[in-house]
């Protein structure tokens, strides 16, 4: 039928064209831009070059890369350490309780992480709640100066990204067949062994999805270090942003982004390797 063909063509083409022009094309442009020279008057000079990549092997950049990596790995580990037991407990709750608890973890997911990061200033600042608490408990005698240090931005990242770790973990653990733990115990495994050899490997896809959703944003959420960390704690995200909005070196900013994207592709590869038998959508 004519109208059926027409519907199919319309449905497919609208999204296809939209994403081709506004997503695929700009991605390709970033790749191209990363091989162009920085221009004097225009932003780009049409000369192909790899200087934007070779330039990255520079102690200043390498230092920032390294710091970003360390910070985001620590963030990921902390989120995993806090989030895994949480998701594990959540997945074993009774149906009713679980839905309520799940909703409480979805709310932070929906609320602005900028606002949530702003909210912890009041907690962390010198006369803030944390210091007051520690002082009244006589755990410290002088208020700690956490705010505007890299510790504050570390705390902010963990706080902002924790829900992104919990949700994929919960999604896999919810489907977990708890009788497998019984089976392992029956065969002579103690609780710890059953956990490490059965629960953890089977929930690996969830762990990797969670790591992906935390590791990359931890490098690129530039506003968290800017709000909480002060000038000295800039990370990869701030570096890229500065190339575009302040330094005006777009080719360099592009090449850093490409490196970042490669890193992402690597993680996705790992995710797929672990998940190839099962079809599962992220989040």
């Amino acid at each position, binding site marked *: 039928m004519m*109208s*059926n063909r*027409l*519907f*199919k063509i*319309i449905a*497919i083409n*609208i*999204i*296809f064209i939209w*994403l081709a022009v506004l*997503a695929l*094309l*700009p*991605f390709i*442009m*970033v790749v191209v*831009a990363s091989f162009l020279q920085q221009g004097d008057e225009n932003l780009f000079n049409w000369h192909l070059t790899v200087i934007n990549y070779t330039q990255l092997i520079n102690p200043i950049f390498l230092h920032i890369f390294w710091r970003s990596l360390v910070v985001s790995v620590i963030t990921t580990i902390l989120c995993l350490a*806090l989030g895994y*037991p*949480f998701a594990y407990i*959540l997945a074993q709750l009774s149906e009713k309780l679980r839905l309520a*608890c799940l*909703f409480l973890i*979805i*709310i932070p997911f*929906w609320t*602005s992480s*900028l*606002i*949530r990061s*702003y*909210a*912890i*200033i*009041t*907690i962390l600042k010198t*006369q*803030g*709640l944390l210091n007051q608490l520690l002082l009244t408990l006589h755990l410290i005698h002088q208020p700690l100066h956490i705010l505007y240090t890299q510790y504050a931005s570390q705390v902010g990242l963990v706080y902002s990204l*924790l*829900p992104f770790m919990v949700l994929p973990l919960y999604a896999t653990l919810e489907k977990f067949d708890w009788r497998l733990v019984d089976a392992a115990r029956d065969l002579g495994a103690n609780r710890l062994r059953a956990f490490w050899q059965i629960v953890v490997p089977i929930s690996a896809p969830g762990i990797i999805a969670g790591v992906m*959703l935390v590791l990359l944003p931890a490098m*690129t959420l530039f*506003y968290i270090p*800017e*709000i909480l960390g002060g000038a000295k704690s800039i990370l990869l*995200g701030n570096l*890229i942003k500065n190339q*575009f*909005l302040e330094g005006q070196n*777009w080719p360099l900013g*592009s090449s850093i*982004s490409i490196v*970042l*994207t490669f890193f*992402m592709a690597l993680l*996705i590869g790992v995710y797929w390797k672990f998940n190839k038998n099962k079809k599962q*959508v*992220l989040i």
Partner: protein
Amino acid sequence: MNKSLSASYLAFIYVILYLPILVLIVFSFNNSMFSGLWHGATLKWYRELFHDSGLQVIAIHSLIISFLASTVATFIGLLGAVALFKYQFFGKKLLNGVVFIMIVIPDLVLGIAFLILFHALNISLGFWTLLLAHITFCIPFVVVTILSRITGTDKNLFEAAKDLGANDFIVFSKIIVPMLIPGIVAAWLLSFTLSFDDVVISTFVSGPDFQILPLYIFSQVKLGVTPELNALCSVILLLTVVMALIAQMVLKKK
């Protein structure tokens, strides 16, 4: 595991997640400009908020962008999800791939990609660039949300409708859309909040003539904590929590 230990761990995480937000809301009622201590309750900051005409303009900008972006994105994403579900076509894998990549790629990379695109096309930054960018980054979330709903429905239903003489336009408007209403509403609400809260992408694609709330808040936050800002953030939090609530309720009804 020990029951009370489990319960206290859950409680511990919830406290960590919610305490800062609660403190923020409480201090939006604090009768003192600077202090971190409690000086009695007042609605002064909310009154000031609602009398700040500059802020009102910015808020309206944000609402317009988010409303338009989420509506257009929901429409396109819905069509896209239906196409991905129903049809086999050239480039289907590519489309799936782009949707997946857009969800996992850091917003920052998306932001600079938009910036380079608009620069290359010589479009000056402002309302239109913001709108286009917001529509685009919402589409994949709509596709995923709706797709996960359609895959649960019975393909035979569509066949049955066709068998009774309906063409694809009718199947779409009379069967698919009504059946997917919960998913569509949830997708729209999610898009609205994603757009309304977005800082990273907007940083790259907005111009000086068209300010929006998240960027305004970002610039204010760098100056420090004020009760008025707390009040503004509380209002936004309330809005998004209500949206999340509606979305959950809509999705739970089958």
